[in-house]
């Protein structure tokens, strides 16, 4: 394992401090917690809180700031934060208008955030939540945990954040967040694994010519492995799965080409080049595109494509100003 770190046990703390020291105009750390909050608490609006395991940087701390989150709670790397941490975050940002939690659909995340909201409700804080489940690599079913929450979460942050900033009620912000969730789909892949520092070795291994299709943002196995193909063919395959899941035809969409952390921008741009052409050919109009490392898996090399079906409300909120360390 070759990493630029110090004592591995301190990684999460040093990382959060490094973020807060870089961007003190936006964020600060809640003392003795893994919680990042806005430097100046924003009053008079619904507070948005998200989080999850660390290792997805800049998610989620990088999205705390004007027009997006009020707090991000970071657990150990790839491990959802504990309820007491989330509870601290809720207490720090709660306003009279209530708190909306944006939770990625993992059993651990859902349980820990739920327990935190039970604690907060005992303090009479109005807390509600949405669960993001955009990953079409996983079958959706009432009888299972359902789909994973992956890169589409960033679009939920952006749009729900703009809605909250406009002064909408908790119910309204939740409704808009849920609309994003209902309309966003993502699928990813990887060509090299990531190493959880405390584990010291890759979570999975891939042959020199192999790729994992449908991989999760914690390096969880996807739908299958196959020999590495050309970027365009891979992009087509991922798009196919996304387009098969909900109907985007004739719609305007936002496109997010998300890097897994170790993927050079060069490759993400090459991929976007083809994604754009394929969608255009299918008559799907691209309203806005984001290309970059938004929801990473430490140093994994790979990418995901997210498509968000837009209506006028979502377009306006997507375009609304945001000012955070990682999204402007």
């Amino acid at each position, binding site marked *: 394992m070759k990493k630029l770190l110090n004592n591995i046990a301190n990684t999460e703390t040093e990382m959060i401090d490094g973020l807060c020291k870089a961007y003190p105009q936006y964020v600060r750390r809640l003392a003795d917690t893994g919680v990042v909050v806005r430097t100046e608490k924003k009053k008079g609006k619904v507070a948005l809180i998200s989080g999850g395991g660390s290792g997805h940087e800049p998610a989620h701390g990088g999205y705390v700031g004007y027009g997006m989150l009020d707090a991000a709670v970071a657990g150990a790397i790839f491990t959802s934060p504990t309820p007491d941490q989330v509870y601290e975050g809720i207490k720090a940002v709660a306003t009279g208008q209530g708190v909306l939690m944006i939770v990625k659909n993992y059993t651990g995340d859902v349980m820990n955030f739920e327990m935190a909201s039970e604690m907060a409700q005992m303090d009479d804080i109005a807390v509600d939540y949405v669960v993001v489940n955009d990953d079409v690599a996983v079958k959706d079913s009432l009888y299972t945990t359902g789909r994973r929450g992956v890169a589409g979460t960033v679009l939920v942050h952006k749009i729900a954040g703009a809605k909250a900033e406009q002064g909408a009620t908790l119910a309204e912000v939740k409704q808009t967040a849920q609309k994003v969730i209902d309309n966003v789909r993502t699928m990813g892949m990887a060509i090299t694994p990531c190493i959880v520092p*405390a584990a010291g070795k890759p979570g999975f291994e891939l042959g020199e010519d192999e790729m994992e299709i449908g991989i999760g943002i914690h390096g969880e196995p996807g739908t299958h492995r196959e020999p590495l193909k050309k970027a365009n063919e891979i992009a087509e395959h991922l798009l196919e799965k996304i387009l098969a899941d909900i109907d985007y035809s004739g719609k305007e969409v936002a496109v997010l080409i998300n890097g897994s952390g170790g993927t050079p921008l060069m490759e993400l741009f090459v991929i976007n080049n083809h994604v754009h052409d394929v969608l255009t050919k299918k008559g799907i109009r691209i309203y806005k595109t984001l290309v970059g490392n938004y929801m990473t898996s430490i140093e994994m090399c790979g990418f995901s494509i997210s498509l968000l079906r837009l209506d006028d409300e979502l377009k306006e909120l997507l375009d609304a100003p945001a000012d955070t360390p990682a999204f402007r």
Partner: protein
Amino acid sequence: MTDSKKLISVIETIAQVMHENKEFLTELDSAIGDSDHGINLDRGFQAVSEKLKSLESSNVDDILKAIGMTLISTVGGASGPLYGTAFLKAATVVKGQTNIDAQNFINMLKEAIDGIQYRGKAHRGEKTMLDSLIPAYETLADEYKRSKDFVSAMEKAITSAAAGVEYTKHIIATKGRASYLGERSLTHQDPGATSAMLLLRAILNSL
């Protein structure tokens, strides 16, 4: 009869077993999860072990409650709230007591399982820790009722737990992170079922 001192030593053994199995459990989790189960539990039980020092003169239910809270606030992931809730629920069985007897323990295990099911909304056969805990509980309750021999009942319970672990290789996960794998979760043994079996075995070994 397990008093507070004995309970603490049992928990110490569990902590040690989790530490020894940190890599093994993480390895199991890497096949169908996110490579952290052993790391999570080791972190949690190290914190528990630290905490125990201040609890020697407490009632058994306070010790169990402290363990539950510590696990909830240090483990994270899916297993943190589940094991934490299990200990919190077990504590309710022995409220105010200074001792745990065999029947208490059986009832505690039942409460723990109910807590896990309330929190995690899973059932037997979904490839989770329940697949070793539930058969272990059933065997323990039946065998103890029949024989009144707790140690031999526990031995049989652990055999059932191990069989439950083995069974998880043959089923598709529908709860937890492994469920994302669908059919690809087959042949792999569930990390949580394994850690639950190890926990029960540690209890037996420290009696």
